[in-house]
């Protein structure tokens, strides 16, 4: 899969997981891994980028005697999901057009 395309999908996946509620790094890896492969080193720059773009916020909370970082989606993050879904609708339309054209050519 194209790296840029994959990055866009991963952004959407992480934001979609966070839309259900706040989460932490390892939980995000587990949740996103259930539908697309992601590693720690891939997740870290994505979280940093989304935080820089104000699409998520980070809070450190005490958990079992240590600090754990929790990520929360912001309104800008929710808007981004809406934008990405609109973009996907266009991609699906293009996909359907191409597959239809190809099947007609084959016939």
């Amino acid at each position, binding site marked *: 899969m194209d790296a*840029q395309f994959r990055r866009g999908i991963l952004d959407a996946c992480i934001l979609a997981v966070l839309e259900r509620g706040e989460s932490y790094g390892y939980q995000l890896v587990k949740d996103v891994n259930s539908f697309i492969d992601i590693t*720690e*080193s891939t997740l870290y720059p994505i979280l940093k980028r989304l935080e820089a773009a104000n699409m998520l916020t980070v809070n450190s909370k005490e958990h079992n005697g240590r600090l754990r*970082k929790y990520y929360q989606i912001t309104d800008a993050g929710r808007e981004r999901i809406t934008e990405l879904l609109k973009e996907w609708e266009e991609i699906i339309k293009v996909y359907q057009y191409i597959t239809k054209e190809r099947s007609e050519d084959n016939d």
Partner: protein
Amino acid sequence: MTKVQYLDNLKSALASAGIDNPSLYEYYAEMLEDRIEDGMSEEEAVADMESVEKAVEAARLDMPVTTLVYDKIKDSHEKATQKGHGVLWIILAIIGFPVWLPLLASLFVIILSMYIALWAVIFSIYAVELSLGVSALGCMFLPFIGFFQHIPFVTVIGSIGCGLLLGGITILLWKPIIALSIAAIQLFKIPIRGIKKLFVR
């Protein structure tokens, strides 16, 4: 490998790669702790984590190209010195000077020209937006001066209409222009990341 060994290896690997990012280290430590808390043994948790090498390689991709090139040259010299070929490395570097310098210079010129092209595109996009906005204001407010100079009423109304139209276009174009700028920056990152990978691996 135990948790402490993994984290020690990570810390020293990050330090030797010139990465001073405590939050990155804390991130990996947290990932490891969470795995253990999830029921894995220390060894299983370490085995489930990405290797230290991969973690450092990914972190290095966020460093500037100049740092990566410098580190690659330094690393190559250190490896040659360890094998006892340090002097030979320097001699070859001097002899190969007419070859590697133009190559290196052209690489930097390519990156610089891409950077200039990117900002030229962004600047021109915003220049169009600004000119539309200024034209809209001009069309809307200048006719009021015309009232005192006996400009026909129809021309004044037409001018205000054009101003409103241009103002509408300016507002409508604002979001697509921001999206286009972000897309241009994202597009610029693809070849830069490719160049960086040459010096990371």
